[in-house]
């Protein structure tokens, strides 16, 4: 903001169709949020399906939900929250021209993201060996007043939602790796750091999706019979 128009004009990162860096930044942020709104609706469809089937097949939903390991889910929630903190720190230091700290916090964020995926893989493996993956080998020891086929619907949505979420995490880790290379190259300065900030928005969005997935899939049916 304090920079004179002359220096802004010479910033190599300024595209010719923008008046100044501030306008370019505003446009980039708006565009990123428009994309995130489509992502909200994309996940929204699956959340709607989840809610409808939870109402229709409540007992089967409770039975399926109680197969989740709350401790692993809570651990992953904490890992994602910590990764969101390291992500904002990377953005913060990019704005302060502290290249080494940007690289350090991007790498920590990548490690936390991979940690999340590792825990998720352990959970998927447990579901696999317990025959909880929908399909031919699905087997569910059912004791209550529900159709075990409806538990398959629960697990189908569980795998669809957490799988889509994990896929977003994989894209996020790839984006952060690309950012790390660019940060090492010295591409980001206090004037130009939009890629770090926009990938940060994406990373936090994926965190917000998990903030809802965790209680819906793991917590809310835990004490119900």
């Amino acid at each position, binding site marked *: 903001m304090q920079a004179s128009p002359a220096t802004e004009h010479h910033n190599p990162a300024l595209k010719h169709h923008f008046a100044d860096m501030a306008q370019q930044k505003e446009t980039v942020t708006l565009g990123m949020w428009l994309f995130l709104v489509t992502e909200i609706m994309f996940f929204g469809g699956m959340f709607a399906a989840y809610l409808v089937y939870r*109402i229709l097949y409540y007992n089967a939903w409770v039975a399926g939900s109680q197969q989740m390991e709350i401790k692993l889910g809570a651990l992953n929630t904490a890992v994602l929250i910590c990764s969101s903190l390291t992500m904002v720190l990377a953005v913060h230091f990019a704005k302060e021209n502290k290249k080494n700290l940007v690289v350090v916090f991007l790498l920590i964020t990548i490690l936390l993201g991979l940690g999340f995926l590792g825990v998720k893989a352990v959970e998927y493996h447990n579901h696999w060996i317990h025959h909880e993956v929908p399909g031919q080998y699905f087997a569910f020891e059912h004791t209550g007043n529900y159709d075990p086929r409806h538990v398959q619907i629960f697990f189908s949505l569980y795998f669809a939602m957490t799988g889509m979420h994990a896929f977003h995490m994989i894209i996020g880790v790839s984006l952060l790796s690309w950012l790390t290379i660019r940060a090492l190259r010295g591409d980001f300065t206090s004037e130009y750091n939009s890629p770090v900030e926009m990938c*940060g928005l994406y990373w*936090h969005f994926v965190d917000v999706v998990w903030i809802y997935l*965790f209680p819906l899939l793991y917590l809310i049916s835990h004490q119900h019979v």
Partner: protein
Amino acid sequence: MTEQAHNGPSLKTYFLIWGALIVLTSITVGVSYLELGALNPIVALVIATIKALLVILFFMEIRYSSKMTMMVVVSGVFFLILLLSLTLSDYLSRGWSHVAR
């Protein structure tokens, strides 16, 4: 110059929000072990919404962004609520009338 170069949240704010998110996660996990009946999902979703708001307002810096960007975010949430409420108004109200199927 470096501190004033951007008018986003301070480092202290980021750590406070992180602490609040961890505390809220512990609370929601703790509450899930209590038998509250219909209150279990309500408490869990209220806490999740507070956490989501903290992330969106501070980590995603919507609190510090332009009115235009805020409007896009609000419109996204509005259409999500529309999707969920219209769908559920159908499924929840089935069986309320006594018309033969």
